[in-house]
């Protein structure tokens, strides 16, 4: 089975994520879309690791380690990100990014 399938799949997921970021105003949803993008990347990496493993490279596990780290980072980001969102919500009682335009020009 050609790896292109996975490439296209994950690119598709990635772009869907981007679309989401572009289309939504709810900070949380946007954040979720970003997570989606990360997962697309993960998927791709895993696919590649398989590919290189089959191609007989011994260090192919590296990609999976990388995915592992991405998850780690993602988790950390979520912690911080949600904290920020909550903080903003506390002050503005909204998570709508469009009302955040005190800073401009």
């Amino acid at each position: 089975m050609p790896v292109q399938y996975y490439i296209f799949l994950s690119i598709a997921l990635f772009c869907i994520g981007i679309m989401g970021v572009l289309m939504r105003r709810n900070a949380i949803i946007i954040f979720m879309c970003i997570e989606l993008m990360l997962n697309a990347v993960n998927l791709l990496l895993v696919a590649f690791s398989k590919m290189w493993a089959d191609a007989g490279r011994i260090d192919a596990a590296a990609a999976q380690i990388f995915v592992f780290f991405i998850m780690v980072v993602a988790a950390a980001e979520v912690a911080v990100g949600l904290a920020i969102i909550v903080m903003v919500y506390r002050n503005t009682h909204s998570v709508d990014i469009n009302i955040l335009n005190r800073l401009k020009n």
Partner: protein
Amino acid sequence: MNALISTALSGVVLMFVGLFVSNRQRIKYFAIALVLVAFVANLLELSTLQGGSQTLFGMLEISKFGLLFNAVMLGATLLYFLLCGSEFEKVGEHVADYFALIFFILSGIMLASGFSSLLMLFLAIEIISIPQYILAGADKKNLKSNEASLKYFLMGSFSTGILLMGIALIYGASGTFNINELALGTGELHPLTIGGIMLLIFALAFKVSAVPFHFWTPDVYDGSPTVFTAFMATVVKAGGFIAFLRLFHVSFTGGAISQHWLLVLAIIAAATLVMGNLTAVFQQSVKRMLAYSSIAQAGFMLLAVIALNETATQGIILYAAAYSVATIGMFGVLMKVKDYTFEGFNGLARKQPLLALAATIFLFSLAGIPLTAGFFAKYFVLSAVVQQGNLLWLVILAVICAAISVYYYFRVIMAMYFKAGEPEVAPFTPAFKTVLIIAIIIVIVLGVYPGILLQWA
């Protein structure tokens, strides 16, 4: 390596110090001591390092160049603590934590200057970014601060996604994350590689706030507490550049490969120069002007990334030093002035000659006037690009932009010297004065005799 460890540990230590020590002054002094330690440790390593470089599990490379850069960054941070340290407590009560976060950022920068695996690059960038999200929002009650934090966070993680996609594609093409192996592997140009490089460029361009990925910069710098803006705009930005430069210098040089990204990067640089300088001209607040000027300066540093030669690497170090010192100093002055608008500076020269003089020197340096560090910084990157050849148009553009930059830097000078006014200035200690004078001296010395720094590289 020393520096990396010491900064990381310092961060941890400070976290706990925050629990036991309530006296903020003391915390500050402690932090200063720690950064000093890191600085010295780094210098020791720099002086004792024999041979070109040594690597750690193919993950970290310790090279003279990287260490020198770390030294510059740590020195800048030291200056930053000395000048702005007392402003921390004005932001919020978690002073120790703020210091801790800044130390974490530093350790991230130490990584960025020495990574030899894309994984480390990723981690470095994240370690640099995440604390910034927090620092940006440190002033919790202030809506602007909140807004800055959220904006930065959302866009930052978005760019992280793009970075990762780029890494993934490159891995797909080459099967390795090690940047040195990448350099060997990119003989034949795989479509994935090209795509990956593109995405990497975009992601890193975001981190160094290059047009069209710069939009977060003014808002975030404007919204965040000024004291942290000073740090983000200087040390952190330089860190982003070292990562950028290192990645491309090691992996993607060479005619066949570089011609694929050179033009894109050149366009980005040109756009950055133009937009940054142009937009800065019409600002009302000095703080925001500095934000845009940081974009403009990024444009110049990008020239070094484009050129990717000996001069460029020397240039980036010099530039990092000159730019950081000048901007930190400028922010230091700014924080003493109550009103951040240009009018707020009217008549400063009469009231506080020293502040005015310092600001003038720093602005000269930023504008690249000879006999200040900024001149040689600009000189090096420009000559690097000229050396690179066939991008003379970019050089001319850069030069014109430099001329434009005078326009907004000198607005401050005019306000201070040629306009009458009664600026309210926060009181400052003699210590602050001395530090300011030291900063001035550094700027001048680097401007008169840059060799003092370059001899290490």
